[in-house]
């Protein structure tokens, strides 16, 4: 009985802590003392120039980051687990590094590399490549930077998922029954890692949808950068934007976890 009481109490306190500020924020966006109740703030967001464009850009960046992070982390994790368990601490340390380096350092590093690269490659065909990865409409260079940032979260999510299944036995059973390595990866490992993959994807997406420093300093107009630019000194609008992007992230989370649970 005491357990149930404690659980309810904890849940209640947490709910108050999270929901009260949120409710106040929502109230602030829809109620104004002079004009009364109105959804005008949300209307202003959607009609503001650059809304759809920057949102789409961020979602595309997010999708690219998810694909790349999974392609990097999953095979690496499997290879270490199956072939070289002794290297696990090394991999763990490497994937923690991006958390230690401050974003501003990335920006300086990337900017320097791009500038130096532009000079060095000016006379070669690679110059075009260097320019195209900085394309304002789909900055590949930002994808690469975000992959680095997302790696620690994706790695931990996948590692936890892999810990819950006996990967070695499943792989060997599948190999024994004639499955090729790609078949093992896509038809045996992935289906049993659905929730871990969904978790890694969500964390990566949330990171992309919320990252401001790198994008802003490098001069790209992603959704978070657009939010800051457009809210300006319109208090109601900027809070409405926060509420909206929070709602958007939640929606994506529900979609992803729904996809993760589907096959059970």
């Amino acid at each position, binding site marked *: 009985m005491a357990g149930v009481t404690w659980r309810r109490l904890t849940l209640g306190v947490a709910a108050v802590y999270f929901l009260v500020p949120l409710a106040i924020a929502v109230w602030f966006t829809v109620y104004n003392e002079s004009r009364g109740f109105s959804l005008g703030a949300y209307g202003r967001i959607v009609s503001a120039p650059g809304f759809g464009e920057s949102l789409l850009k961020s979602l595309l960046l997010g999708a690219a980051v998810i694909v790349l992070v999974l392609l990097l982390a999953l095979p690496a994790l499997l290879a270490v687990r199956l072939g070289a368990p002794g290297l696990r601490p090394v991999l763990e340390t490497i994937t923690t590094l991006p958390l230690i380096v401050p974003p501003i350092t990335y920006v300086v590093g990337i900017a320097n590399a791009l500038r130096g690269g532009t000079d060095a490659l000016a006379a070669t065909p690679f110059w075009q490549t260097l320019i195209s990865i900085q394309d304002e409409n789909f900055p590949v260079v930002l994808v690469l930077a975000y992959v680095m940032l997302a790696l620690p979260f994706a790695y931990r999510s996948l590692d936890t998922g892999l810990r819950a*299944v*006996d990967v070695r*036995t499943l792989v060997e059973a599948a*190999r*024994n*029954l004639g499955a090729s390595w790609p078949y093992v990866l896509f038809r045996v490992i992935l289906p*049993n890692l659905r929730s871990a993959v969904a978790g890694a994807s969500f964390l990566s997406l949330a990171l992309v949808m919320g990252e401001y420093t790198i994008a802003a300093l490098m001069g790209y107009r992603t959704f978070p950068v657009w939010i800051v630019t457009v809210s300006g000194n319109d208090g109601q609008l900027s809070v409405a934007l926060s509420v909206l992007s929070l709602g958007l992230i939640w929606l994506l989370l529900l979609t992803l976890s729904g996809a993760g649970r589907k096959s*059970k």
Partner: protein
Amino acid sequence: MTVELRELRRSFGGTVALDGLSLTIEQGELIAFLGPSGCGKTTALRCVAGFERPDTGAVFIDGADVTRVPANRRDAGMVFQSYSLFPNLNVRDNVAFGLRVRRRSADERHSRAAELLELVGLGGFGERYPHQLSGGQQQRVALARALALQPKVLLLDEPLSALDAKVRVNLREEIRRLQLELGITTIFVTHDQEEALSVADRVAVLKSGRLEQVAPPAEVYDRPATPFVAEFVGTMNHLPGRVSGETVEVFGQTLPLDGTAPGAEVDVLVRPEAVRVTPSGDGRGFILASSFRGSIARLRVQLDGGGEVLADVPGHEAVRLAPGLKVDVTLVERPVLTAPRTAVAAPVEPVG
């Protein structure tokens, strides 16, 4: 289909798992690889499955060298020690997994899966998921899955070790029945000597990556080739004896030698069932402990000169032969094996 292991060597870091293992497994034979953990039995099996590659040596299946063939093209069905069913697939899809990999039609997959589930006594379980099955049922499904592709050889890697004693006995008999019915060449890895002796056509006893003896169960038990085999398979008493010519003197009895003795002062190896215990006021020892096992009782007899002897007597004699009773110990008149004298047996001194 025969399986031949030729001079297999494999080491992991500094540990030698296989040290020149050579063995031929005949068509339709069930051979048990028996040995303590670390003896190389599982490594040998994994070399046949293709999960390990020997450092040197070769594996032949049906006359073809498969040493370099990847695991997914070996045509060997395997049942693992731990539960290995795919948790996201139901029982039918688990059994049909190999057929699906080979792109067989859904009709063929379903009928073959149903047929195999019937064979392992799980007809009607096709729609269940692995987590809804008991351990024994999961291993049956794993067996059906391994057999679905009609492999040339069946590999069993301690498939029963995670199961309850009762299920274990039932399932091992069932495995043997199926194996005989299908006539499939089978390697059964186990550390349980009773399991090996009860199901195998031949038992291969391994120690430190080397073959100690390979022979039918009765021969391994009755005529162990080495002291290690004698010790590992069944229980063996070490009694000090003195060799003279073709005989050995032990406990005041003169028994014929089996094979040649390693010296004059030897350990005579005697099974508990070859030791007779009779109540006697001026006997050479007394009963220290008795453990009743139904059909027999195992007595631990403390000898007056130091040392102990284990003896199996018929269960109904257990009441008469109670702990504390002064007894005499004699050996059944049969040729006996000898081993070099060991320090372990030293306290056992013959009396009289």
